[in-house]
């Protein structure tokens, strides 16, 4: 280091630091200003939002106001408005002289009061202060002296100068009196003014209401209010604070338009001349679904309980949306926002709103229909096995208790015999008796448990078929081909691809084959394929099943696609299955854990009969599983029809069953053990009933709270880094196409990314890992489509442990709970395949091409919009348990015999029947229990009149409604009236006949049969002279008549109308060759409408 020369002047003293200081101070000031700016704006970005909001919303309201003014003018043009306006003017004119007089008096009084008040309040303050001193002074003498001061002060007079110049002197008491009396006067005058103005205000409200009710948008006045509100807005944090739920949400500090009563879109909130909406415009939109806000009031729920994100954060968009590493609940993305519903509505299969197209509902449904809960436990799904297990536990405990009680009671009796005193003996005796009573209670409880087990066994369903029947049902050589890749054979099948090796496939098929039952099936005669096809297409099979592939596919996706069923199925088994899918080959005893065969029955000398009525095990008396655990119902077809359908289905194939490669290794007993290992390993028993694995547990992880699992607990394996850096690990194009938002472009190291990748390619997290066969991930590929992955991801994201208090979560205990429980059943049995429960929800059938034809529209199953209000719940229970409404003649529909579609017998358990009935009642807000309305008995005159209506040519009821006459019923399109008494609720029938279109849009029941005249429903067609002077509702009369209708009466009326039916009959029979008859109802509807 070169030495610097030593300076001459002392450097410490002479060196100047001015420049250093100047720079340092400038920097310091700059930093200070920066800090101030940061404090005021940098850390408060919402301020900028509020400024921009003011400008843009004001501009928006300005343009809205002109539009609103125009539409207001339109409303004001109406005569009603003019009349109301005139009323207002008249009222104002009438009131104004008196009003002006009163207002003047009040004005005078006001100024008088003011002048008195000024003096009075001053003196009163002094008096009060002195009084306080008296109250608080400690010595008696000082009390007295202040008292004296007070008295003298009160006695002093003060001068009040009135506005008219007059002066008056008052002492304190007088002053007080004067002040009060003036105020009384004013109150009186105000009341009088109110009375005078009453007609004016009333007509003004009427006028305003008229405008508000007749304008679709806001009125200019309302907009004016909004303008004022915006104008007054000063920048401040807008906060929702709900202490009880620990919600503090400041979202509305930027999202200012969320709750505005106008529809704000990004486009409408963009700056003038902007090409695309900027961040501000996007933030200012109103809530897309204001109805949801009505139910979930933001003042109570805030924002973050549904949307997540960091409600408290205000420093940046990322922070507020929770999109940073350390916030555990980031905002749900646009694609998955419905996950928020799941956190509180996990128990709802269908969100109550009664709207379709909810991603989350789809997710819930997929989770169940695809059998996810076969491997993964999820609270609320597939709960029957668990309950059954706990019941079995209870049975054991109770039985032990009973045994103990018996022993104890015997012991006490013995003790009592040997007791020393009488009292002692009596006491012991009483205790022994008490124990015996307790035992009888236990017996009662056991019986209840048995009933419940019976119900549960009936309710327990498996997603896949019963593989104990594999030998009876399947083409042996087809099994390995199927296992290789199920979606290859049947695209869209619920059976997922397990990525099995050939050795595993051989072993598994060998086990399935060798463990199957070898009972023989009755041999079935071949049927008529053509007739089978017709039945298959019309009986309603297609509500659940589909047939055809690609564009030709028609039918529902709830059950299997039957396009290639001919390659795999055995005819005899198929006939039995179609005839009654629930019929088991052998009953299963969960107690002994084995299938019970005829030998067990024979041992006890019992007939080999098992069904829902005979479900006790011959060996131990416990409940047996006597049904196949399938949701497939019985369509109550005759055996011949079943044979026809089976014959038709067997023609559905692409290759001959014999073309499959020989798989005789399946009989190799050595493979069986190996196969059992793999069947167990892959959890096949989660979806299938498999011999020896009836009690297998689930192999997957529980998913009830999967969404709140810490991200570190989700095993990204080798892809943690790739996920964080947004690299896409999936390379298989088929699986890549399943990702809802395509290959990853940015970081997917979050729950959404994990679930989506896992669902798109379940083995992805094994990629690059070296694992043995048994260690590899087992989750199969469910070959889901994009939207399905998205739905399931949404479902899983929402599967969180809610941090909200219990009363925020939707766990209703009233009728809403009935609705909740009902939807589980409705989706379980795919009722929505045939029926509609609310407008907008399309059943499978209604969308099918066949039913677009107007002739076939008549053949659609009934809409159930108001089913609970329509039918008697007791009748409904009976109908649901046996839709034929007949014990012997079951090959028919009980109510709508004219429908080709068959309402199936689902063999609902008592429990499910109860739930369904309650569901329908609750859905229509009907009270339970139902107390039938008393229908008054008609006098003979009334009967006569009613009959005239009933058989009127303007509305010949019996033309469409069935009568029980075979010839007539062949072309009837409505139910028999004789059912009404038991089935319907009279008040509903009355509503129905006045306006059926409002209850069931598109019904062929004619509207306009009655018109309202002078508050009474009067028949629209010609009425006989007997109606002269009849001032009751005609509808009521008709309904009462219908509810008293006897078969004889109906026959009589039908006979009298015979001519009209006969004239139409030939024409209709001719038509019914091509399809079901076109009902004359629509025609008569039109004519009835015309006669109005």
């Amino acid at each position, binding site marked *: 280091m070169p030495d610097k020369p030593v300076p001459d002047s002392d450097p*410490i003293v002479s060196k100047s*630091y001015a420049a250093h200081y100047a720079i340092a101070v400038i920097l310091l000031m700059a*930093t200070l200003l920066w800090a101030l700016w*940061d404090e005021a704006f940098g850390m408060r970005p919402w301020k900028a939002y509020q400024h921009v909001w003011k400008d843009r919303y004001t501009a928006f309201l300005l343009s809205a106001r002109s539009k609103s003014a125009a539409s207001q003018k339109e409303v004001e043009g109406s005569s009603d408005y003019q009349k109301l306006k005139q009323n207002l003017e008249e009222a104002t004119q009438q009131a104004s002289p008196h009003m002006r007089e009163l207002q003047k008096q009040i004005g005078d009084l006001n100024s008088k009061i003011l002048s008195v008040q000024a003096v009075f309040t001053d003196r009163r303050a002094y008096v009060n202060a002195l009084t306080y001193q008296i109250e608080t002074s400690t010595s008696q003498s000082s009390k007295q002296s202040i008292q004296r001061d007070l008295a003298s002060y009160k006695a002093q007079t003060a001068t009040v100068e009135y506005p008219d110049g007059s002066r008056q002197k008052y002492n304190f008491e007088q002053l007080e009196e004067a002040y009060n009396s003036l105020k009384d006067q004013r109150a009186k005058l105000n009341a009088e003014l109110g009375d005078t103005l009453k007609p004016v205000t009333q007509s003004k409200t009427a006028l305003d209401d008229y405008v508000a009710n007749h304008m679709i948008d806001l009125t200019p006045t309302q907009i004016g209010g909004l303008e004022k509100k915006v104008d007054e807005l000063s920048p401040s944090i807008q906060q929702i604070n709900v202490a009880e739920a620990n919600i503090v949400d400041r979202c509305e500090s930027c999202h200012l338009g969320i709750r505005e009563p106008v529809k704000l879109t990004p486009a409408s909130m963009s700056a003038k001349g902007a090409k695309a909406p900027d961040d501000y415009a996007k933030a200012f939109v109103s809530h897309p679904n204001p109805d949801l806000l009505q139910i979930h009031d933001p003042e109570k729920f805030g924002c973050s309980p549904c949307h997540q994100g960091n409600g408290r954060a205000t420093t940046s968009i990322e922070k507020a949306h929770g999109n940073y590493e350390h916030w555990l609940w980031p905002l749900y993305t646009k694609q998955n926002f419905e996950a928020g519903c799941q956190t509180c509505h996990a128990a709802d299969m269908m969100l109550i709103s009664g709207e379709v197209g909810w991603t989350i509902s789809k997710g819930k449904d997929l989770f169940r229909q695809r059998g996810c809960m076969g491997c993964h436990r999820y609270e609320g799904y597939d709960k029957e096995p668990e309950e059954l297990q706990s019941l079995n536990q209870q049975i054991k405990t109770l039985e032990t208790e009973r045994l103990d009680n018996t022993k104890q009671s015997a012991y006490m009796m013995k003790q009592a015999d040997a007791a020393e005193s009488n009292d002692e003996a009596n006491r012991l005796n009483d205790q022994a008796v008490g124990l015996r009573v307790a035992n009888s209670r236990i017996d009662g409880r056991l019986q209840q448990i048995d009933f419940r087990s019976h119900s549960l066994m009936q309710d327990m369903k498996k997603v896949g078929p019963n593989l104990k029947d594999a030998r009876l049902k399947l083409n042996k050589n087809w099994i390995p081909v199927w296992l290789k890749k199920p979606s290859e054979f049947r695209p869209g099948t619920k059976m997922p691809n397990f990525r099995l090796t050939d050795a595993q496939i051989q072993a598994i098929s060998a086990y399935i084959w060798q463990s199957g039952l070898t009972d023989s099936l009755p041999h079935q005669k071949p049927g008529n394929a053509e007739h089978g096809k017709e039945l298959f297409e019309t009986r309603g099979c297609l509500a659940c099943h589909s047939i055809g592939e690609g564009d030709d596919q028609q039918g529902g996706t709830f059950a299997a696609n039957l396009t290639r069923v001919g390659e795999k199925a055995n005819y005899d088994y198929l006939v039995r299955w179609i005839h009654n899918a629930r019929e088991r080959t052998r009953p299963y005893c969960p107690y002994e854990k084995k299938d019970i065969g005829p030998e067990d029955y024979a041992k006890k000398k019992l007939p080999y009969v098992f069904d829902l009525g005979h479900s006790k095990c011959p060996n131990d008396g416990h409940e047996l599983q006597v049904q196949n655990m399938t949701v497939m119902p019985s369509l109550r077809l005759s055996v011949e029809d079943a044979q026809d359908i089976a014959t038709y289905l067997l023609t559905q194939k692409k290759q001959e069953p014999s073309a499959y490669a020989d798989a005789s290794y399946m009989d190799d007993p050595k493979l069986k053990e190996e196969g059992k290992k793999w069947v167990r390993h892959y959890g096949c028993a989660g979806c299938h009933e498999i011999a020896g694995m009836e009690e297998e547990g689930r192999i997957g992880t529980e998913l009830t709270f999967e969404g709140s699992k810490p991200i570190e*607990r989700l095993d990204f394996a080798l892809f943690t880094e790739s996920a964080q850096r947004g690299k896409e690990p999936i390379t298989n194009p088929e699986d890549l196409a399943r990702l809802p938002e395509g290959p990853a472009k940015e970081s997917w190291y979050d729950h959404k990314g994990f679930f989506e990748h896992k669902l798109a390619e379940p083995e992805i997290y094994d990629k690059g890992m070296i694992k043995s066969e048994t260690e590899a991930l087992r989750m199969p590929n469910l070959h889901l489509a994009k939207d399905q992955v998205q739905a399931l991801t949404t479902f899983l994201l929402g599967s969180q442990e809610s941090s909200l208090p219990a009363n925020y979560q939707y766990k209703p205990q009233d009728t809403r709970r009935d609705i909740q429980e009902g939807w589980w059943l409705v989706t379980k049995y795919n009722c929505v395949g045939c029926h509609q429960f609310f407008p907008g929800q399309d059943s499978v059938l209604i969308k099918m091409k066949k039913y677009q034809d107007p002739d076939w529209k008549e053949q659609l199953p009934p809409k159930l919009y108001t089913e609970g209000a329509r039918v008697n719940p007791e009748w409904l229970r009976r109908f649901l348990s046996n839709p034929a409404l007949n014990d012997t003649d079951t090959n028919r529909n009980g109510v709508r015999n004219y429908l080709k579609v068959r309402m199936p017998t689902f063999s609902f358990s008592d429990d499910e029947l109860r739930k369904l009935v309650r569901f329908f009642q609750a859905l229509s807000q009907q009270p339970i229990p139902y107390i039938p309305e008393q229908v008054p008995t008609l006098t003979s005159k009334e009967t006569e009149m009613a009959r005239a209506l009933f058989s009127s040519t303007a509305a010949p009821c019996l033309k469409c409604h069935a009568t029980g006459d075979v010839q007539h019923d062949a072309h009837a399109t409505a139910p028999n009236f004789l059912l009404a008494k038991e089935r319907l609720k009279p008040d509903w029938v009355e509503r129905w006949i006045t306006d059926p279109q409002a209850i069931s849009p598109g019904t062929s029941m004619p509207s306009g049969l009655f018109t309202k005249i002078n508050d009474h429903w009067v028949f629209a067609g010609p009425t006989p002279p007997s109606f002269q002077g009849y001032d009751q509702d005609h509808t009521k009369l008709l309904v009462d008549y219908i509810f008293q209708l006897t078969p004889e009466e109906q026959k009589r009326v039908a006979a009298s109308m015979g001519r009209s039916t006969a004239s139409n009959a030939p024409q209709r029979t001719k038509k019914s060759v091509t399809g079901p008859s076109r009902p004359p109802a629509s025609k008569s509807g039109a004519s009835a409408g015309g006669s109005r």
Partner: protein
Amino acid sequence: MDWRQLWEIISAPDNVPIVGLIPLLAFYIYLAWKQAHANDQLVAQLETDPAMAKTHHRKTWPFKPGWQKEVHVWPFLLRIEFLAAIIVTIILMVWSITLNAPLEEPANPNLTMNPAKAPWYFLGLQEMLVYFDPWIAGVVMPTLIIIGLMVIPYIDTNPKGSGYYTWKQRRFAISTFLFGFIILWVSMIIIGTFIRGPGWQWFWPGQTWDHNRLIYEVNRDLPDIFGITSNLGKAIFGLVIVGGYFALGGFLVYSLFRRYMPKDFSRMSLLQFSITQAFLLIMVALPLKMLLRLLWHIKYVWITPWFNI
């Protein structure tokens, strides 16, 4: 080379002080060395000119006629200190505006973070836990550090070099300090910050911190390597090794002192010297133990039922 990983570590708000520490440390050592060098030159110059040595010289500069003999604290010292205060204020303000407190998610006892790291100033202690028992690394060592710092004024018998930078006059003190500070403290903090990844495993800078990384590493006790199995044997073996280290080391320190610092040595009492010697040996023992572990996977040397070293 995983630059992203390196950047993630460097840019973490938690690590800003350490990233700043490295250049600052280099700079201040350089500055101190420069001053010391100048002073040493001046001292050498003055020693040749006894007359000059008696005047009031200003550290690096010899005295010049016309200079003030003494300068006042105000303004000549305070103006510099105040300038420094302004600059520090600016730095702190800019820092606090640009980097917010690195708050993380609420603590979850069921899910601890990995790697779980102490605050930066304690990372050296945490690193020591790898090599010693918690009791030794967490209690004994820190106590010794504090006592050692307290004892310095009493064992420092060198009267020179007080109030100015010098190297020649305080070679032992300065090198011991640098050893203790840079090697034992700062470098361990740097290891703790940049090197220790998930599972407290050793990741070289630029290596990806893979949470699933598996390594095979077996640490053995020194007595085991020598096939000693009995507890008593192990204790005696350890005692011999550790005792041998202190005996040999003590002799080494003694001969070095006598040879290179005879003046200092002669000024020291027996107590002062033995305390100096003990602390010095303990200080050196720490990196030795680290090397044993890192290079030869030796876990403990001295195993007793009460403590392990």
